[in-house]
């Protein structure tokens, strides 16, 4: 753990903000402060890298190409509903 280095955020503060930092949810100043801390602190950097990797594995679950049969049925459904098979929105 690092603490007290001049101008560098403490570990406990960086870790409190780490999730929001990795999610891109911090404002510019906070983002910069966490980034500086990670550049200077091996322990927190390792932790951030672990969560980045875990997140990228999870992101890989987000997209699933429908198998050909289901894909064809879906494409057919989309065309069906837009061409009057379902009640349609009032055209503006």
């Amino acid at each position: 753990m690092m603490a007290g280095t001049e101008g560098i955020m403490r570990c406990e503060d960086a870790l409190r903000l780490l999730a929001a930092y990795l999610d891109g949810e911090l404002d510019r100043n906070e983002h910069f402060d966490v980034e500086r801390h990670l550049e200077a602190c091996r322990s927190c950097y390792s932790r951030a890298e672990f969560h980045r990797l875990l997140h990228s594995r999870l992101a890989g679950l987000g997209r699933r190409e429908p198998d050909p049969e289901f894909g064809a049925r879906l494409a057919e459904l989309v065309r069906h509903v837009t061409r009057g098979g379902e009640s349609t929105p009032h055209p503006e």
Partner: protein
Amino acid sequence: MPGVMTKHFTDRASWFETDAERLLPDLYGAALRLARNEADAQDLVADAVGNAWTHLASLQDRGSFRGWVFRILHNCFVSRCRSSRAQATEEPYEEEGAQAFSLFERLHQPFLLWWGSNPEQEFLDKLLREDLERAVDALPENFRVVVILADLQGFSYHDIAGVLEIPIGTVRSRLARGRSLLQRALWRHAVDAGLRSAGEPDGRGGDDGRD
């Protein structure tokens, strides 16, 4: 001017077809983790697409189409859950107060960095896609939905709040809790699969703020 209206309508249909089809892999990916089986996930996506077209007039801004469709997908999921709620066996979880779990704390061994070994990386390398799917599927619904939207679909906290119609503070707390539970599930899987020793600590302490 019927001709103008018809053309406008045709443009909307064409635009909807293009954008909906482009979104299908994301919708199906999310639906699989919501429904936790292929047949229900396919029905969910079909419901969402049909409802999206039916309610297209309520879409204010085409730029927000993705979030809007995911909101419909989630509403379809909630409706289906309600109809089968009598059989639901969701584990009740308090959103606050339960102790956070840090997978990193369980795995990290700083001295090994100098030895050229990285147990965290090795752990993630050994995880199969189905291990991750199982861990996500095991999350209680409220947390699973937020993890799906944030970590699988990349929505911002603000957009998730819009999709689920909940305050952004609730998004943050559910996401933190969901991630903690997810990491605990992955750890337990690692122990069960013999990837890690059962003698290592399981879930007490180690709150690192990320969980």
